[in-house]
C-alpha cells in the first residue's frame, strides 16, 4: 500500500472517533485517525491533574484576557483555570450566530472525551419510537433490539457503573457496581418514591467511572477532577481506553494537526476515495485514500465536512440530496432547576468526592402521564453539606466566624433538568459564505432556537422539581435558572440524521451516507431525535455497530 493509503480513515479522535479506530483496527483494518488539534498524551499531558488547590495561581478563576479570548466558553461554568487549555481557540475558529448558539469545542487529541460529564444512559424503545408515535419529523430506522447488543459491547469495555433498576424506559446495562447515593439522598429518594407511589425514580447516576479496575486502568479514586484528565485512568476517555486498544493492534496511525477539509468523491463509483487534509501548522494540503471513511468530528463539524465536500453532483454538499443535511439541530436544554435545604442530619457527612450524583429518570408523557407538550426530561443533582463559602448568620468577621466556617454547614440539595429538544427542520446550520477561519475555510452559521414545546417543558422542569423537593421535605426551595442557548447542553446533534428513506434522511440504518455508501457518520450528527438522556453512550454503541457492519460489507466486497 502506498504511504497515503489506508483501509479506513477516521475523522476525529473524540468519544466516537476513538471507538471507530478501536473497532476497525481490532477487526484487522489499517486505519488513519485524523485529529485537527495537537497531541494530548494520557497522564503525561494532564498538567494540572495532581496540583493542589493552592497551586492554582487564580484558584480556578479566569483572567480578563482569557474572557476576551474565549467569550463563548465564558457563557457558563466551562471557563475555569484548570481547563482553559482544553478549549478551541475562538479567534482562530469563529462561527456565526444568526441566533445565539453556544459551541464548546476542544480541538486536541481525545476531543471532549477528556472533558465529558461521563453520564451514560441507554435509550429505550420509548425513545426510538417517539417520532413515529408523535408524528414528529421522521421515524428512527432502528429499534432498541438493534442497538442493545452494542450497548452491552461498549459498556463492558468503557466501564459503566450503575444500579440495576428494572425500568423499561431506562434499560439496565452491563454495569460495574454502582456508586452510592449518600445518606440524605437515600432518604430523599425514598420519600419521592413513597409520595409518587413508585412512579418517580431517583437513582445514582450511571457513569463511565470505574468502580472496579479493568485491564490497564485503575478504579476511580474519588478526586472528582475528571475533566483535567485522570492520572489513574479512572474514567472512559479516548486516551485511557479506546486509543491504547487501537494502538495495541499495530494498525493505527494517528495524525494530529490534520484539518480534514473535504471528502474526495468519485462520481464513477459513487463512493468516497479518501479525504483532503490541511496541516494546521504548515498549511500544506495532503490527500489520504481509503476504502471507507468514518466521520466522527462532532455533530456540527461532521456536517460541516459533508457540506464543504460539495461537487457538481451534490452542490449543497455530500449527503445533501434529501435537503436535510445541516438541519434538525438538537441539543438538551438545561441550566435550570431548584435548590433547597434539608433540615437535620447534622450527624451525617460524606467522605470522598464522588464523580456522579443522583439522576431522576423521566416521568413526563409516559405510563399514562400527559402534559401540554411532547416528550420529557430528567434531572441530575446532588445533596451535600455547605462549605466555607456560605453565609453565617449573625457572624461577619473574627475568630467565631472563622471557626464556624471550618465546620460543614447545613445539608442542601440541588439539581438541573435535562430536557428533550424536538427536531425542527428550520433549526439548521449552514456554511457562512463570507466569514473564514484562520485557514481560509468557511465557518458554520448557526440558526437554531428553542420553540414552544421546549419553553413549556422548561416551566414544568422547574415546577416539578420544586414539588418533588418539597414532597421530600426540603425547605427554602427556590428555582434557579442561568443562561442557556442551543448548544450549551454540549449535546449538539441531528445534523445528518438517520432514516429509512433517502428522500428525508442523510444516513441509512447503518449510518452510511445514502449518497456515498462508504462514508459513515456515527457521532451526534446521526441522531433522529434527542431523547433526554445524555447521548455519548448511544454514539459509542452506534459507532461499534456501524464499524462491524462496515467491515462485514468490505469483506463481502460491497463497499
Amino acid at each position: 500500500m502506498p504511504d497515503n493509503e489506508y483501509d479506513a480513515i477516521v475523522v476525529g479522535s473524540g468519544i466516537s472517533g476513538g471507538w471507530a479506530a478501536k473497532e476497525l483496527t481490532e477487526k484487522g483494518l489499517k486505519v488513519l485517525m485524523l485529529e485537527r488539534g495537537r497531541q494530548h498524551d494520557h497522564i503525561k499531558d494532564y498538567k494540572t491533574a495532581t496540583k493542589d488547590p493552592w497551586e492554582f495561581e487564580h484558584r480556578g478563576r479566569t483572567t480578563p484576557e482569557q474572557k476576551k479570548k474565549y467569550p463563548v466558553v465564558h457563557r457558563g461554568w466551562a471557563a475555569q483555570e484548570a481547563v482553559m487549555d482544553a478549549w478551541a481557540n475562538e479567534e482562530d475558529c469563529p462561527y456565526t450566530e444568526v441566533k445565539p448558539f453556544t459551541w464548546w469545542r476542544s480541538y486536541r487529541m481525545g476531543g471532549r472525551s477528556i472533558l465529558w460529564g461521563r453520564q451514560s444512559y441507554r435509550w429505550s424503545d420509548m425513545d426510538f419510537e417517539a417520532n413515529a408515535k408523535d408524528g414528529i419529523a421522521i421515524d428512527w430506522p432502528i429499534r432498541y433490539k438493534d442497538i442493545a447488543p452494542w450497548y452491552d459491547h461498549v459498556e463492558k469495555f468503557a466501564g459503566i457503573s450503575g444500579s440495576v433498576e428494572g425500568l423499561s424506559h431506562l434499560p439496565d446495562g452491563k454495569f460495574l457496581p454502582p456508586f452510592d447515593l449518600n445518606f440524605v439522598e437515600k432518604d430523599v429518594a425514598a420519600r419521592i418514591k413513597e409520595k409518587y407511589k413508585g412512579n418517580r425514580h431517583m437513582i445514582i447516576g450511571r457513569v463511565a467511572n470505574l468502580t472496579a479496575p479493568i485491564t490497564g486502568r485503575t478504579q476511580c479514586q474519588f478526586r472528582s477532577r475528571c475533566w483535567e484528565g485522570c492520572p489513574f485512568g479512572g474514567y472512559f476517555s479516548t486516551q485511557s481506553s479506546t486509543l491504547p486498544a487501537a494502538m495495541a493492534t499495530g494498525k493505527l496511525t494517528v495524525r494530529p494537526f490534520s484539518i480534514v477539509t473535504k471528502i474526495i468523491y468519485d462520481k464513477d463509483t459513487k463512493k468516497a476515495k479518501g479525504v483532503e487534509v490541511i496541516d494546521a501548522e504548515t498549511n500544506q494540503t495532503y490527500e489520504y485514500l481509503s476504502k471507507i471513511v468514518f466521520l466522527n468530528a462532532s455533530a456540527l463539524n461532521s456536517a460541516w465536512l459533508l457540506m464543504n465536500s460539495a461537487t457538481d453532483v451534490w452542490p449543497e454538499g455530500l449527503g445533501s440530496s434529501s435537503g436535510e443535511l445541516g438541519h434538525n439541530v438538537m441539543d438538551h436544554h438545561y441550566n435550570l432547576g431548584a435548590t433547597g435545604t434539608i433540615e437535620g442530619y447534622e450527624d451525617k457527612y460524606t467522605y470522598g468526592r464522588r464523580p456522579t450524583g443522583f439522576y431522576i429518570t423521566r416521568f413526563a408523557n409516559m405510563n399514562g402521564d400527559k402534559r401540554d407538550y411532547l416528550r420529557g426530561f430528567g434531572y441530575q443533582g446532588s445533596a451535600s453539606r455547605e462549605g466555607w463559602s456560605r453565609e453565617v448568620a449573625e457572624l461577619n468577621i473574627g475568630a467565631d466566624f472563622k471557626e464556624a466556617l471550618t465546620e460543614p454547614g447545613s445539608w442542601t440539595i440541588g439539581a438541573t433538568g435535562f430536557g428533550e429538544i424536538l427536531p425542527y427542520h428550520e433549526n439548521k446550520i449552514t456554511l457562512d459564505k463570507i466569514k473564514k477561519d484562520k485557514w481560509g475555510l468557511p465557518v458554520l452559521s448557526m440558526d437554531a432556537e428553542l420553540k414552544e414545546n421546549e419553553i413549556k417543558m422548561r416551566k414544568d422542569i422547574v415546577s416539578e422539581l420544586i414539588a418533588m423537593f418539597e414532597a421530600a421535605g426540603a425547605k427554602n426551595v427556590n428555582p434557579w435558572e442561568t443562561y442557556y442557548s442551543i448548544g450549551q447542553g454540549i449535546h449538539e446533534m441531528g445534523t445528518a440524521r438517520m432514516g429509512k428513506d433517502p428522500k428525508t434522511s442523510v444516513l441509512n440504518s447503518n449510518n452510511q451516507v445514502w449518497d456515498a455508501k462508504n462514508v459513515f457518520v456515527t457521532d451526534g450528527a446521526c441522531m433522529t431525535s434527542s431523547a433526554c438522556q445524555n447521548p455519548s453512550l448511544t454514539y459509542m454503541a452506534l459507532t461499534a455497530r456501524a464499524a462491524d457492519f462496515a467491515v462485514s460489507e468490505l469483506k463481502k466486497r460491497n463497499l
Partner: protein
Amino acid sequence: MDRRELLKMIAVVTGGAFIGGELLLSGCKNADTIGGVIFSTADISFLNEVGETILPATSSPGAKAANVGGFMKVMVNDIYEPKDQAIFHEGIIKLNDACKKAHSVSFMDATAEQRASLLISLDKEAKEYQENKKKEDPSHYFTMMKQLTLLGYFTSKEGATQALRYIAVPGKYNGDLPYKKGDKAWATS
C-alpha cells in the same frame, strides 16, 4: 463536560457571584488592562492585617500566615476588571480613613479590638450596599476584601490543611460518614 462543576456553581449562584467572575453573556466588553495600579509592600502588609482581622489565628493559622495580602494582589491585578481594581485600591485608603475617623488611629496602628469593631461596621455597611446596589454598579470594596480573604485563606495550604481537612486522593467514598460537632469540613468538594 463535567457538569458537577455546574452543580458546584449552583451554590455560587445562590450565594452571590464572585467579583471579577461575571459571566459575559455576549461578546466582549472588556477594556484592555492598563498597568496603572500597583500594590506596594505596605499595601500587602495592610491587606494581610485586614485578612487577619477577618480570619484571625485560632487553633489554626490566620489569614496573615497564608499571606492573603499577596493573594489579593495577584487576584486584583490578574482577575479584576480595571473598574474593580480602582475601587479596590481606593478601598485601602477608605478603610484606613474610616479607622482614623472611628478610632483616631491608622489601621496599622490600631489594636486588634479597634480593627475588629471597624470591620464589623464596614461589613454591615458593605452588606447593605450590596443588597441595595444596582446590578451594574460595582461592588463595595470591603466585599471584595472579605471575599478574597475567604477564598485565599480556605484554598491556601494553611487554610485547606489546618483549618479544614484536605485529602488529595480519597480513594473511596462513604455517603454515611458519622459527624460530630467540631469535626472539620473537607477543603474540596
